């Protein structure tokens, strides 16, 4: 009575190649491909993406050719030099330092920190939300209490105090300190979606197929909330640009001698600078606005791309 699978099907190893070719011909494009197709259909989004990537590459490469310590030296000859001159494209500050060069190195620093902060805090927040939402019960309750507590900590003040207390720090330690305080938004979002997702039968099916919990969380559930993750990460990137620059603006971000977009904008704190020497701070402010708007815009388009009802690109299903 009892037979093996081989006995009841006519398909044998000989047919494998032919059949897999047949199947490959009928294959459905993956989600990522659909999203990319959607993106290509949106010209302004493509433009933003290219400008953004080009800009990031540009500041990284250009800053390699700039000798930062030398650039940060005071040069009395260039005291508040006017912009749009061959020597000082964007003028100079009170120390005679070239704003254009500071802008390039500062952009690289600020963007790198924002990227690092986004990667660390989002990864942490995603894991936290997935685990909290998947296991539920006591695990979730305990993790929620930690989340609640993190929410009441006065973040900005605490970060400033920590930065003041610790004697030495650099861009990396600063990024780590900031990461402690910026994962909660992501974790909450991911948790609520994971809670809903964990109730679905495909999770039960994976359990009865003998798949382990961690594999279910990261291989079964996570792909199903991947669009949420991508959109949220993009939007947090835009937000995170404001975190380090804001701190540096207050004077508690990157250590002295390390330019940042924030320290450049901090030039505006001097009433003389803000009106008389606008070029010392305005380009940095403009750059932050353009950066944040374009990253956000890319995030919005991605959100639309993941929402099938709003797709503009050609249907590929």
């Amino acid at each position, binding site marked *: 009575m009892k037979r093996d699978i081989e006995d009841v099907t006519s398909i044998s190893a000989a047919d494998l190649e032919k059949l897999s070719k047949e199947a490959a011909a009928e294959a459905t494009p993956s989600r990522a491909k659909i999203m990319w197709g959607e993106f290509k259909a949106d010209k302004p989004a493509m433009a933003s993406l290219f400008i953004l990537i080009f800009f990031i590459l540009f500041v990284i490469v250009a800053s390699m050719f700039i000798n930062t310590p030398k650039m940060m030296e005071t040069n009395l000859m260039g005291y508040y030099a006017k912009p749009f001159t061959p020597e000082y494209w964007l003028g100079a500050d009170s120390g005679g330092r070239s704003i254009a060069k500071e802008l390039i190195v500062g952009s690289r620093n600020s963007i790198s920190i924002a990227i690092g902060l986004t990667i660390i805090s989002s990864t942490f927040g995603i894991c936290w939300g997935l685990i909290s939402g998947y296991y539920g019960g006591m695990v979730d309750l305990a993790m929620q*209490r930690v989340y*609640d*507590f993190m*929410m*009441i*900590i*006065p*973040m*900005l*003040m*605490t970060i*400033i*105090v*920590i930065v*003041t*207390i610790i004697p030495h720090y650099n861009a990396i330690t600063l990024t780590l300190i900031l990461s402690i305080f910026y994962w909660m938004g992501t974790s909450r979002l991911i948790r609520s979606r994971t809670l809903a997702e964990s109730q679905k039968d495909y999770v039960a099916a994976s359990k009865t197929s003998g798949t382990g919990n961690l594999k279910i969380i990261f291989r079964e559930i996570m792909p199903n909330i991947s669009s949420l993750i991508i959109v949220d990460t993009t939007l947090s990137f*835009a937000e995170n*640009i*404001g975190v380090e*620059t*804001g701190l540096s*603006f*207050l004077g*508690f971000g990157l250590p002295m001698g390390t330019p940042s977009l924030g320290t450049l*904008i901090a030039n*505006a*704190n001097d*009433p003389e600078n*803000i*009106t008389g020497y*606008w070029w010392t*701070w305005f380009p940095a*402010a403009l750059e*932050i*606005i353009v950066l*944040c*708007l374009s*990253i*956000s*815009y890319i995030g*919005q388009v991605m959100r639309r791309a993941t929402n099938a009802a709003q797709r503009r690109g050609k249907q590929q299903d």
Partner: protein
Amino acid sequence: MWKTILRRVLIMIPELVILSILVFLLAKAMPGDPFTGSINPKADPAQIHHLMEIHGLYDPWYQQYWNWVVHLFHGDLGMSYEYQEPVVDLIQQRGANTLWLALFTMVLTYAIGLPLGLYAAHHEGKLQDTLVRVYTYVTMSIPFFVVLVLGIWIFGYALNWFPTSGSISATATGFGATTMSRLGHIILPGLLGALFGTVNIVQYLRSEVIDAKHSDYVRTARSKGVPMKDIYRHHIFRNSLLPIAAFAGYSITGLLGGSIFTEMVFSYPGMGLLFLNAINFRDYTVITALVLLYGFLNLMGTLLSDIVLSIVDPRVRIE
């Protein structure tokens, strides 16, 4: 309902204890004596060592913590070394300024956000809706401190419409004049804060109203001939307004965090500026007190919101 509230308050207690321990440990990590403010952190090491012994700063940490908590309960936050004034008095003066600014900002936020959310929902899918969405997208993307700098540059310095520093002009006398002067000083920062803080209200109200518009109960009411105006008033508003009001508590966190930037840019003498000065002067008693106070206010804000929400929405209560 009272049970829910009481339980929520009980949950708050451990949070408060952990917060105070955290602040205490941060303060311990600061040089000198951040608790009483009687040691000049810039004095010579031998003298500091002597003073620290006198003030019991070599006791075990839990004993020091306990002493500190007992002092807190007596309303004693120590002396500010820089100002030579009790910290409590300092915070009272500065706190009032921050409070006025925060309240003003919050009122403006609702005054702008509510009509915008309704307007967008009413014109769902049309040009007006798109414009409101562009507005929320722009305001939520740009870092707030950049907005403040541009705002003070354009409206403060270039156009000279608003004062650029302080909380009241020195020449103002009499109740009317001082009130007007105070108001004049908070209009620009308040307006900027409000314009760039409406995102949550607008988005929430818009989606709530749109959901309600398409819900079966509203369709039924319409088909029975109830005018749309009444539906808005009796069904849609009642459901969405209280949760939105509850946002006020949560937004305290954002307002307080933002106050540091606002007060710095506008040289507005509130708690945020007091904090920044204290950091620069290493005035540790003030720092400790302010971090604790801000944490406490955040806690109160979320507590308030949670309670209001649990009253509105029974689903929250079950948790």
